[in-house]
């Protein structure tokens, strides 16, 4: 399985490569009286080939952070880097290409184009880039996500868990530098949720992928290598190799 890992995975365990990072990321919505500071100068790094979860209470800015790092939303101040590239210097076209070629997405819902089959959805970003969507890598991804018997089905013919697995496969299809998940299991029952997380974990372990995921579910977060806790637009805590119980414990303290 190691052959599937990215070529550039040569960093030492003590100094992991950084897939994306922010410097003093600030995001302010509204103006004057209605001004809301969603991100209050966050500086954070996301390591490559790791599974990172972002947690925090509602309004903590976790989704905003994800959207800004993923190039879906623009910062008010500060910088975001994917690899060494500063997103703030990019045009809409460059951002689109960045999302297409270097970033993968899994949203909470509505991940798939309803008129396309599972396989067509998986290969969509590749084909948007004008590439053939039928190489060995795609086959491997489909294999690992156990989607072989679903390839010709349309989203309406699949369960929620299956749909999210297709979404993960789609995110993996372009061999992105980093995959962002916005509550990818938020709409699933616990069984399907566990299944999807299991596959995400495999993508990191067996394919050397990098995943950053926002979640409010402690069990989901426990699949991650590292958890960032946000509150009021700031990173307030961090946890490595978490367990569900530890996360629950930490989350309780937000309520106090």
């Amino acid at each position, binding site marked *: 399985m190691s052959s599937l890992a990215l070529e550039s995975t040569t960093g030492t365990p003590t100094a992991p490569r950084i897939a994306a990072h922010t410097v003093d990321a600030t995001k302010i919505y509204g103006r004057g009286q209605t001004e809301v500071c969603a991100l209050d100068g966050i500086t954070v790094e996301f390591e490559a080939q790791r599974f990172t979860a972002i947690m925090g209470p509602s309004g903590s800015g976790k989704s905003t952070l994800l959207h800004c790092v993923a190039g879906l939303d623009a910062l008010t101040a500060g910088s975001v880097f994917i690899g060494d590239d500063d997103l703030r210097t990019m045009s809409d*076209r460059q951002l*689109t290409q960045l*999302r297409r070629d270097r970033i993968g997405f899994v949203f909470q819902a*509505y*991940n798939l184009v309803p008129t*396309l089959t599972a396989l067509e959805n998986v290969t*969509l970003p590749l*084909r*948007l880039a004008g590439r053939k969507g039928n190489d060995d890598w795609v086959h491997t991804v489909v294999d690992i996500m156990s989607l072989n018997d679903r390839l010709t089905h349309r989203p309406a013919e699949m369960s929620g868990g299956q749909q999210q697995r297709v979404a993960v496969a789609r995110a993996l299809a372009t061999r992105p530098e980093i995959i962002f998940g916005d509550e990818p299991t938020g709409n699933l029952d616990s069984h399907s949720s566990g299944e999807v997380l299991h596959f995400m974990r495999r993508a990191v372990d067996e394919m050397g992928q990098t995943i950053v995921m926002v979640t409010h579910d402690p069990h989901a977060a426990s699949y991650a290598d590292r958890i960032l806790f946000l509150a009021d637009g700031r990173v307030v805590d961090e946890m490595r190799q978490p367990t569900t119980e530890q996360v629950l414990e930490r989350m309780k303290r937000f309520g106090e």
Partner: protein
Amino acid sequence: MLTTAIRNLWAHKLRLMATVFSIMLGVAFMAGTLVLTATMRTTFDNLFADMYQGTDAVVRAQSAFEGPQESTGAQRGRIDESLLPVVSRVDGVAAASGEVSGYARLIAKDGKALGNPTNGAPTIGTNWTDNTTLNQFHIVEGRPPRADNEVVIDRKSARDGDLWPGTTTTVLVQGGPMRVVIAGVGRFGTADSPGGATVVAFRLPVAQRVMGAVGKFDSINLVADKGVSQTELVQRVSSVLPKGVEAVTGQTVTEESQSALRKALGFFYTFLLIFAVVAVLVGAFMMFNTFSITVQQRTRENGLLRALGASRRQILGAQLVEAGAVGLLASVVGIFAGLLIALGLKRLLVAVGIDIPSQGLVVTSSTVLICLLVGVGITLLSALSPARKAAKVPPIAAMQLGVVGSTGYGSKQRIYVGLTVLGLGAVALLLGLFGGVERPMLIVGAGALLVFFGVSILGRTVSLPLSRVIGAPLPRLRGITGELARENAMRNPKRTAAAASALMIGVGLVGFITIFVSSTKASINDAIDRGFTGDLVVDSGGGIAGGLDPGLAQRVGALPQVETAAGLRVGIAQVDGKAVIIESGGSDLFKIMNVDVRQGSMAELGRDGIGVYHKIADDNGWQIGTTVPAVFAKSGHNTLRVAAIYDDNAQAGDYVLGSAGYADNFDSKLDNKVFVQAKSGVPLATAVAAVKHITKDYPGVKVLDRAQYKSEQSKAFDQLLALVYALLGLAIIIALLGIANTLALSIGERVREVGLLRAVGMTRSQLRTTIRWEAVIIALQGTVLGLVIGLFFGWALVAAMGDQGVTVFRVPATSLAVVVLLAALAGALAAVQPSRRAAKLDVLRAVVSD
């Protein structure tokens, strides 16, 4: 509920504007037509009332028969001028004056013939009446004619031809070109010319001579003594009149003229009204589509209202109020826009030579009422079914996520209904064309309408396979964007079909007219190839009333380069109780015009022989030697003998009279055309030059070779085609608005999908491409359906007109390919706005909405 309805309207101003616009255009066109009709009617009613104001009674020959077309009117002979002193002596007659009229064509200062009698208003010659009460002219410049070569002309001709008192020019009349001096310029009441006709008034004896009416009058106009009423005058005068001559009141003549003009313009109005109906219909389709989509999008909202206690009737009512408000707004705006259209149409009429005296637009209350009723009615009607669907939304819908609602492939029941309507329409259409029923136009129109409805009912069923086929090359051509476009066009066949339906109507009619006109032109060419074996045609350009003086044919025939020159004459007669156009020529003519004589001989027509087209002979059971009753305006009742039966009526029409027979029965001595065959061995150019050397004395006359003759014969059809295209363009614009609107609405439904696509890397230009191709598929779908219908209509009409010379069915592949291409382009154009808006969508908002 009312406020909800109104708020809904305001919340979607853009959509509102598009919908209002679509209905508005149709209503505006209708209002424009009605306003123009009323205006023209009032104008001409006033004009004729003015012209005959001083005339209390008219003595004229009784009508021999009614002309073949309604507009030709009563056919009368002339009366003897000796009646004038007889009538003048009747007690109560204050003044009496004889009048003749006929063909006279003025030559403008630049040497070109004035007026266009083939397609437009007539070119009239008449006599100058000294009695100012009876004279319809009143001189505005110059003086009455005093010498035999002096004339008074109407002011429109004076303006158009730059002919003012003192100018010398030429008038084409029966005796040949005549040099005249303009003595005066006059007007008719408030108009420069009666309806755009050119009028030349000679001194009476001159007029009688050049109209071929020596010793004759067309009518004697009378003024009554004070205290004698029009009716009384008519009674007194009638007692002294011989058999076959009648006296009528001035009032009657005024009304006859008024109604004759109305009939003449009636075709034009009908024509315009048909397009107004088409425009309204297309608007209704778009309306229906828009309402259907909005109702579907408002499913949750309506569910919420129901959950909050709104009754079904209230929901239905709110939807209808919304529709009614749209309809009302559109109708009111449409009526005002209609005034502009009426002004535009008036300009158009003036441009084609119909002079309309200056008069404000006449807006009658019935015009306003009709437009409001049609506008609001059609809107409500098209909103009814969507509104009922809205009322059926259950309260639970408020709690359900996402938009439900069927994408609709069409139930079996629906297919049966569609097929039935389509079948009924086709049967009605064919029955109207071939069945010989009463009011065939109405039945054909209703049939055509049903065919359109039938196809649109079936639309959603055929839409899916059609989109699949039309879009088939797209994935290969455009990759993923093409594939998505195709899938999007296929995902809701009901909607795609509805958007395509509106375009289908416009394209259907365009296709139909294109096929029909091109078949007609092909038939004309074919007929000329078959029927005309000569080399040149000399055309008077004077239409059925005008012509070439017979001297021209003689002079051309005498040329050393010419083998034969033979004139063709035309007249109106009643044969076997039916008013018909009859043509005439000597035996020379039939040497170079091949009519495929089956029995008898054209050389044996003599004085009382008639040649008949074989279908007419077959229908009536006539054979060689059968005697047929005929009525002529000049000679009255007569008996003709069938002397020839021929197979080809494309050149000589259905009835042919010999030259001697024509001279006996018609006053006119004018040739409508002269057909020329050059001596063998003479180059065409030499022959043309020789003939032109003679015709230079006859301004307005055209010398045409075969190719020019063909294109001259089809010219009228090209003009018709251009006009029809312009008018149908309107319907197509509405349809395109419909496609744009549908796209905008469906994209509104797909915000999240669009956001997703953008998030996973679709560029703005890829997104625009996708939407553009979706629009192209919809447009092509409408076009394909329209062309199939147009093909059917075209075929049916061509088949039905086989007897009237349309013998060739020609499908102009190039023109139709251009139509398809334009439709695709137009579809892409319709996508510009929706795709731009979609591309501007905020990716994030689209992805995380809710």
